[in-house]
């Protein structure tokens, strides 16, 4: 039990997928101008990453490794993720229209979110078991959502402050903020 707890803390904060592993930066820079859309995007990513991580793990173990074609991992995983995202979109539209209205517009963006793919590959690379895959995928995605949310809040504040020097307005200040956030996350290093 303890090892899963450690894994969750590590994936969410210490090795934060956005700030330390540098994945999923595009949405952090692009979507985070309002807390509402950050929440929607975050929830959609947690859902898709967990689904994709576990599905890819199963495919890797039952098909690719059995047949000895691990080198096709990249091709197969991305195919799986693209299909999965589109499938979830179609399904959600039918089964849970309110959910679709809240998260739906973010789904197409997720196919190219390097985080989903990156987490799937990391699961294999770090030789996680199925349970570890499940936990790691979800915790990483939650870590992403946390950064997205923090960043949206900070940006709302910064926009109202109006004190950002002209040359740093927009993306530059977001990146610098991310750097500062990374520093403070690195302060949790002693936790593991």
């Amino acid at each position: 039990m303890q090892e899963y707890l450690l894994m969750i803390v590590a994936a969410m904060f210490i090795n934060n997928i956005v700030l330390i592993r540098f994945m999923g930066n595009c949405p952090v820079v692009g979507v985070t101008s309002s807390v509402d859309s950050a929440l929607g995007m975050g929830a959609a990513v947690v859902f898709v990453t967990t689904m994709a991580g576990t599905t890819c793990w199963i495919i890797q173990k039952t098909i690719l490794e059995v047949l000895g074609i691990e080198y096709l991992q990249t091709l197969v995983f991305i195919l799986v993720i693209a299909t999965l995202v589109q499938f979830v979109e179609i399904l959600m539209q039918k089964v849970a229209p309110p959910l679709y209205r809240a998260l739906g517009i973010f789904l197409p963006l997720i196919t190219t979110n390097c985080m989903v793919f990156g987490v799937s590959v990391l699961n294999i690379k770090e030789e996680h078991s199925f349970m570890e895959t499940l936990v790691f995928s979800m915790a990483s995605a939650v870590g992403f959502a946390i950064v997205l949310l923090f960043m949206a809040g900070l940006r709302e504040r910064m926009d109202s402050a109006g004190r950002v020097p002209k040359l740093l307005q927009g993306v530059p200040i977001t990146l610098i903020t991310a750097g500062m956030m990374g520093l403070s996350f690195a302060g949790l290093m002693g936790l593991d």
Partner: protein
Amino acid sequence: MSLREIIQMVLVLTIVAAVCAGGLAAVKMVTMEQIEYQQIKFIKEPALKKILTDYDNDPISDRIQLVTGKDARGRDVSTTFFLAKKGSQLVSLAFESTGSGYGGPIGVMIAIAPEDDVVQGIAVTTQSETPGLGTKIIDDPSFSAQFADKPLSANFSLSAAGGQIQAITGATVSSTGVSNAVNRGIELYQAVKPELDL
């Protein structure tokens, strides 16, 4: 969405996926040997360099694989032997063996001169021992030097077990791991020596 559309969609994606996979498989076939060579080169070469002396060929190119046993599920397990030659004369033969250490398996590369059955040297390739203690099996050259230039008949166990090897203080488990790996390696060598056809 009409049936025709679905069929068209399935057809296109199937063909694209198959063509992509086919192309990649072809590339893989072409590069496979080279990749294997590179992987061995960058993982094993540092260890090989340490223990092999006085040769003029590329032992990584001149490697052979032999089936050396069966695993728990009855599948064949093979070991790679790297051959070091001078001129066309085989001077030594290196292969990897493992023993269990404190933090996991320890990989040890062993070089043996087949001519007179002497261990020429050993080098640790992979380990996950406690930094500062168990890692002395790598960092302290005098430890692995104890194994060098001894005949196969020598006792490679730790002195505590009646052998000739002095364990590293504070790292008995790691030292035992290395010594076990060497013993196991020599056993394996003796077993396959006839097959090697030297």
